[in-house]
């Protein structure tokens, strides 16, 4: 699925990107938590 105009706006919107930065870190931490317990 190719990015829409809205997706392209979001890629550059700094406030949205701050939110994504937090979310991506949380996703990584979820998987890393499993890894650290292995």
């Amino acid at each position, binding site marked *: *699925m*190719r*990015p829409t105009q809205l997706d392209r706006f*979001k*890629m*550059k919107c*700094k406030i*949205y*990107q*701050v939110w*994504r*930065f937090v979310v*991506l*870190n949380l*996703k*990584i*931490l*979820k*998987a*890393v938590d*499993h*890894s*650290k317990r*292995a």
Partner: protein
Amino acid sequence: MAKVVIIGAGFAGHTAAMYLGDAIGKEHDITVIHKFDIFGFVPSWVWLGIGAVKPEETTFKLKPVYDKFNVNFVQGTVTSVHPDENYVIVNQANSGGEASVEYDYLVVATGAHMNYDATPGLGPKKFTESICHLDSAIQARDSYLQLVEKMKRGERQRLVIGTGHPMAACQGAAFEYITNIHADLTQRGVRDKAELVYLTNEPAIGDFGVNGINVVKPGGRIARGGDLIDAAMDDFGIVKSIRRGVKEVDEKKIYWEDFEGNFGEDDYDFAMLIPQSRGVKFPFFDKNGEDISSKVTNPGGFVLADGIYGLSYDELVKTPDAWPANYQNPQYPNIFSAGIAFAPPGPISVPHVTKNGTSITPGAPRTGMISGVIGRVVALNIIDLIKEGRMTHHERMSEMLAVCIASNGKSLWNGSAIVMIIYPIVPDHTRYDNKEGRDLFVTRVERGLSGAWLKQMVETTFMHKFKGNIGWKYIPE
């Protein structure tokens, strides 16, 4: 007192050395043998290759770090391993003489040997550039900057970036290099003078040797992450030359065979092509002096571990437990392989053989993150064995997370990057009840400024960790 020898101080070997030194360095003898006296942060060489960072920003001296961790450091090259008698022969860098180093546990973490010879004409000593080593990345930068000067004079140039062998891995690095070249040329005002071509052995854009990354979109729809990569390449005006295995390179042309078995060629002015990777270069000898490398490694030189080898691709897809868990060699249980050095049981991407019998299949990637995790698991198991006599840690690539961040420019204000979070790297259809065999909450492909921040954060925190600075252990691999 146990003796642990680690061959190689890349992501896997260095991580193992830090964990071992921290836990048992004072009571036991930990030795790292590495060809160079520096650690190189390989992911930054994508930026080094366009002159966006200086070489010294991507490296640091190993010895001061190992002194902190009570780890011995020998700069040299291992020339042979003798697993029956538990010693390795090292050609030391400083004196130039050979020395024997004994071990109770051996960690082979040599990384990949870049096998340029597998493709005639390939490599920094021949016709193409490489960003796989520090010296070759510096050479690639110099060639690239000369090319920029030509473009400034109005000459049009053709840059081909991608894979230089039908079985090459590490497409992510090539993709990141070409997107950074696009950003850099745009910034220098000469982008219109360059034709950028991404030449790859992947079956589709966004495969990256992990069989693609499908993600869940709002509303529960499954989308192909590769489409986002594809769209980015269209935005950047990058020509896609996919499903092609490079067979030979000469001064002016790159010769390839495609999935359909057709042969073709591409002109180039500058080419950076990732070669086939091979495992260890040194042989293993038994007590009679007989070469037993074929019992310890696979034909590619990668050290056999506790995986299940010899399965067909279809069987391997259904058997996530075929991937090694503790990276212990079945023949010699005191030998472990970490990072790129271990032998994967097969590819993750769907293998393809052309009508001419050429296998064009992206190799299984083992990035810095994967190597670091394996280095930690191996180190913790050796600590277990020394202290308690049994191993308690395991992590297969079918249980492991990978984060790949392909930057497009280094700026934290108007830069961007494509972030690929893949969990697990090898799909596990027994654990995840979806077509992808992955955790679709975690698995993501995103493009935006947050990726540039994430890339900077990862680089800064990893370098902090690898220098053994305060809190290093709490920073994930």
